[in-house]
């Protein structure tokens, strides 16, 4: 029995907090960095930037569409502009502005959506974002990043700031288990193989990376060798990593806190079909809305735990 001991999965900061902290560092290093907020600075942690750089912080009120266009105006005038709100609000209310002012006009705005997925818990479906990957990926020219922990969030926000193009970054509300070492290097578009596997591969994003590590541990106890890939960049997707996983393990399970019919899974499936078709299963939210509850209650009821993902993996392996 080979139990994986490489990962202790210590709880780190929430990715939204890591974002709030790293933009202060960016602001210190570069006077061009500016931040817009829509009355959620305490929740998105941009209040840290506001406190440090009040002149470079733009309070837009509860008006996300306006904020996105203001951010686009700043970004098209040479500023490194971040706009931030809950994913559910900035994408749904600001979508037209993201499409026309940023995607179509090729303006390098950085959009950070926090409180993504269903793990926000108590506030319930109106604030839960289960379609943001789909929406963001449909914006032509956008880079879409979904970090799993504070380590990758900090590194990827820094990379995004100086990326020449519009970027959407997906952050979560709750504390996230740390899955990366402090030494790990991050590159936009380059997936990270956290665990090598022979029998199958998990490809996951956000909080579900840690849950796939747990699933891999469970399966290891059953003699199954399951690899885990953290695909922190969803667009452009790392075709080589996906093709290699398909070719070498012949079985892929994708896990995401998002609708499975329009998220990461279908993007991975496209690459698999185009390279090395193999058995696949999709773990995440069906096309329905969740409900209020503590984050733990919600994640358990909607089957977002390592044990649930292991069930999906066994189903995939049975088809292999």
């Amino acid at each position, binding site marked *: 029995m080979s139990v994986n001991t490489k990962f202790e999965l210590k709880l780190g900061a929430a990715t939204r907090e890591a974002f709030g902290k790293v933009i202060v560092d960016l602001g210190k290093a570069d006077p061009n960095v500016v931040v817009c*907020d829509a*009355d*959620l*600075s*305490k*929740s998105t942690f941009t*209040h840290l930037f506001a406190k440090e750089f009040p002149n470079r912080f733009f*309070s*837009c*009120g*509860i*008006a996300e*569409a*306006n904020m996105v266009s203001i951010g686009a105006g700043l970004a098209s005038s040479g500023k490194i502009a971040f706009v931030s709100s809950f994913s*559910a*609000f900035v994408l*749904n*209310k600001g979508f037209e502005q993201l499409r026309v002012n940023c995607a179509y006009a090729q303006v390098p705005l950085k959009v950070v959506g926090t409180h993504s997925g269903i793990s926000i818990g*108590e*506030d*319930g*479906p*109106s*604030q839960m974002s289960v379609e943001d990957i789909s929406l963001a990926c449909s914006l032509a020219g956008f880079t879409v990043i979904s970090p799993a922990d504070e380590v990758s969030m900090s590194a990827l926000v820094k990379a995004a700031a100086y990326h020449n193009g519009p970027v959407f970054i997906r952050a979560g509300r709750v504390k996230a288990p740390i899955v990366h070492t402090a030494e790990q290097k991050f590159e936009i578009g380059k997936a990270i193989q956290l665990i090598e596997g022979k029998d199958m591969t998990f490809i996951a994003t956000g909080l579900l990376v840690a849950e796939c590590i747990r699933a891999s541990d469970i399966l290891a106890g059953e003699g199954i060798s399951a690899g885990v890939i953290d695909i922190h960049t969803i667009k452009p997707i790392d075709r080589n990593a996906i093709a290699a996983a398909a070719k070498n393990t012949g079985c892929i399970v994708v896990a995401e806190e998002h609708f499975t019919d329009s998220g990461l899974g279908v993007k991975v499936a496209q690459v698999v079909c185009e390279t090395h078709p193999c058995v696949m299963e999709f773990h995440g939210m069906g096309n329905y809305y969740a*409900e*209020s*509850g*503590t984050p733990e*209650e*919600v994640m358990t*009821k909607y089957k977002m735990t390592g044990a649930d993902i292991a069930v999906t993996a066994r189903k995939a392996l049975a088809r292999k």
Partner: protein
Amino acid sequence: MTKTSNLGELQAIAKRVRRHIVEMIGAAKSGHPGGSLSAVEILTTLYFDVMRHDPANPTWAERDRFILSKGHAAPVLYGVFVEAGYTPAEPLNTLRRIGSIYQGHPDRRYIPALEASTGSLGVGLSLGLGMAEAARLDNSPTRVYVLLGDGEIQEGQIWEAAMYGAFHKVDNIVAIVDYNKIQLDGFVKDIMELEPLPDKWRGFGWNVIEVDGHDIPALQKAFADAAATKGKPTVMIAHTIKGKGVSFMENNPKFHGVAPTKEELEKAVQEIGA
């Protein structure tokens, strides 16, 4: 449910609603007390005096409609629903828990008597206009009431709706702004000032009534004046105190979205005295 215009009776209901609010949020350990407490008299006056509705027949076609556009204030609506007999009292302490009918924001999947599922700010007034238009088409006496937050009306869609309401002379709708001067991150004047607010609505063609949102007789008169106003929609700018009725929550931005601790809850219940 028996309706009443009696001040003492309405005040007693308001007290019980306040108590429900702090107790359910205390039990949930999360939620939005400030903006729930500021709207207690407004909802109490509407549901127990002004509105034509029947908890025994929630699908009555000619009922008046109420939309809690500022959906995070769900606890005040739940408290009123319990007092009116729409929903049971005992699960109030399951607020925000899995499977509860008392979801974090109003959710029609769990309580069909709710007119709208809300929680994303800025959409309720437009929704209400649609309902008001449907009522006019059906020659129904239905009137529509929409409660908006002051922070909420920073959303552009509110002003699109404001233009529509005046242009189409939708006089069977009342927008109520819970003007408690505080939003999520702090005071409205520091986030995105709204003044001169009455002038803005007047400029958009609305009948504007300013009222003390905790003064029940004043609210009763304002709703009567609104009903008597023909040819244009009415907005009530209700001056309120966020956290009203609990001294340490009053006018305190912290209690926008923070639950009372056990000790704070005891103090709050004592002060409310229901």
